[in-house]
């Protein structure tokens, strides 16, 4: 008998007789008041809690300021811009920023990516892997600049799992810089992932207006 069969048989004969119902995955009613506070001003909560984690948040009033704002954050350093933000990459090159290609990613000092969602409760960036959003762009460079639209900021994880329709090969929830407290509980940032994280918040519907301005 194979290991698979043997383990499954052992589990089948071992499991307790009574079968408890799994229960509904709905949000607990007791959480309503707490969640209302998050839902009342998700962007405000996101910004406050991100800053608590050491993330620098830049709230833009006009999406046309995006390229200038990102260029300033990059400060002339070698920068990789993910393919999903191609228009931004073009503008940054015009502004004279040294961009690196994918095959030189490990030399980049800054990685610029979009974020698919934000989560207010934990100041989290939701990064969904896909052909134009590679995993390493937000991971290898010591500085990560994430571009997020304010209307994509959700209240909490319950909101996120409700919104997900199937899963990509990798979905990463990133909250603040890479950190470790392994040595005597003293906090060190930038252990393996980026030690500096910037979030550039675009006003709602930013994408369309940015596309126009890029033309």
């Amino acid at each position, binding site marked *: 008998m*194979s*290991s*698979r069969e043997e*383990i*499954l048989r*052992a*589990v089948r004969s*071992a*499991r*307790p007789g009574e*079968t*408890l*119902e*799994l*229960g509904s*995955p709905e949000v*607990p009613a*007791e*959480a309503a008041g*707490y969640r209302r506070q998050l839902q009342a001003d998700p962007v405000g909560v996101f910004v406050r*809690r991100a800053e608590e984690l050491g993330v620098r948040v830049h709230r833009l009033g006009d999406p046309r300021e995006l390229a200038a704002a990102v260029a300033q954050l990059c400060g002339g350093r070698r920068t990789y811009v993910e393919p999903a933000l191609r228009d931004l990459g073009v503008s940054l090159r015009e502004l004279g920023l040294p961009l690196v290609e*994918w095959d030189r990613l*490990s030399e980049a000092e800054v990685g610029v990516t979009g974020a698919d969602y934000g*989560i207010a*409760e*934990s*100041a989290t960036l939701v990064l969904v*892997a*896909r*052909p134009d959003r*590679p*995993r*390493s762009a937000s*991971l290898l460079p010591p500085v990560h600049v994430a571009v997020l639209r304010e209307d994509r900021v959700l209240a909490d*994880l*319950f909101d996120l*799992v409700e919104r*997900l329709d*199937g*899963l*990509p*090969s*990798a979905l*990463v*929830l*990133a*909250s603040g810089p*890479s*950190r*470790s407290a*392994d*040595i*005597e*509980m*003293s906090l*060190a940032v*930038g*252990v*393996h*992932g980026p030690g500096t994280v910037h979030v550039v918040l675009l006003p709602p519907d930013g994408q369309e207006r940015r596309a126009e301005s890029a033309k």
Partner: protein
Amino acid sequence: MSPSAVGFREASARAVLDPALREAIRRVTDNLAVRRVQVTAELPHFDVLRDRAKRIKEHTLANLDRYLEQLEAAVRARGGHVHWARDAEEAAACVVRICREAGARRVAKSKSMVTEEVELNRALREAGIEPVETDLGEFVVQISGDRPSHLIAPIIHKRREDVAELFRRHLGTPADAPVPVLTAAARAHLRQAFLQADVGITGANFLVAETGTVVLVENEGNARMVTSLPRVHVAVAGIEKVLPRLADLAVFLPLLVRSATGQRLSAYVSLLTGPRGPGERDGPDVFHLVLVDNGRSRVLADPELREALECVRCSACLNVCPVYERAGGHAYGSVYSGPIGAVLTPALTGGRGLVDLPFASSLCGACRDVCPLRIDIPRMLVALRARAGQTAEARWERRAARVAAWLLCRPRLYRWASVAARVLEPVVRRVPVGALRRWARGRDLPRLSPTPFHRAARR
């Protein structure tokens, strides 16, 4: 699980005499325990989440075969491979085979308790494959030939000076390097390991049956590296890690992270489903999931200990345990230390550590109070104590008690015996018998008064 050279009694007796160790442990455990209280108090529905998590775990364990089959089908549907390992040797051999087939010379590992449990690194080295631990704490453990002493803070027992000296020898940093310098040196060194590794090996905090997803919770980013850069990703997980639905993560992630480190969410949570998708530029080409039993199905069959399988390894019970705080993690002689380790080690191994681990507790119940799954650890320790009562030492204790009872029922004989006892006392105190001396350690034999009580009372 690597066998311990000495039992809990000897090891803990040594540890309590080390004030620096106690200070180091207390600093970490107090810090984590305080943060846990603050961040769990913030959620008015935290206890509701605990109840819900308990119910989900009970349901899942009661239907574990079904969920494992569902998980397997979901992983396969996304192009992943699933392997089953009955015990530690099979699990290690399976990972070694995968590495060999991938032609791997170097593998990068992120922190995983189950790979410690099955002693994967030893098996890899014996096969000529070099495993590199990439979690900062585990890296320190690896280069110092040490063992982790805490579930989530593996080098809780080491001072900064110890790490600085180690890095001076291995990485060439200055002897007085502060923590940021040490961290930067480890970053630079391990970055090469990520880029050169052929295979990345991780554990799993959760497995989602409906989607075939491996969930990894971490703060450093090394698990992201290990699952993004090498060609092959191997996830090794105990069969009890499965959760039915994606939505269950909205319950379990806050419970785990808030109980473990007192964060609202860890710096990184990765939800990994199969190998990289078409057109993606990074991520593994091949994904393997190794499901490990290694005693878990036996624990599932044990109504008294089954609840231990609900553990999510948050370590909250370690951080409030008065015994852990004084004895340290190494005294438990197992990769699983603290209150839950005192249950898991004998449970998973079918009895190792049974003679002393169940007694490594004051039964104060703090562990049960803080456990996000409300696992009744004291109840299980008591059950294990009853089983330890079947050991040789306990049988001799019972025989001795029967002799004493027989003597106490015979007043004349007892009086003679009390005279004899006073004559023999100096000899008895110097009995050299090893087993008896071990038993007597931690027990007190008060000096007999010159006058027996029954005579003094008569006067």
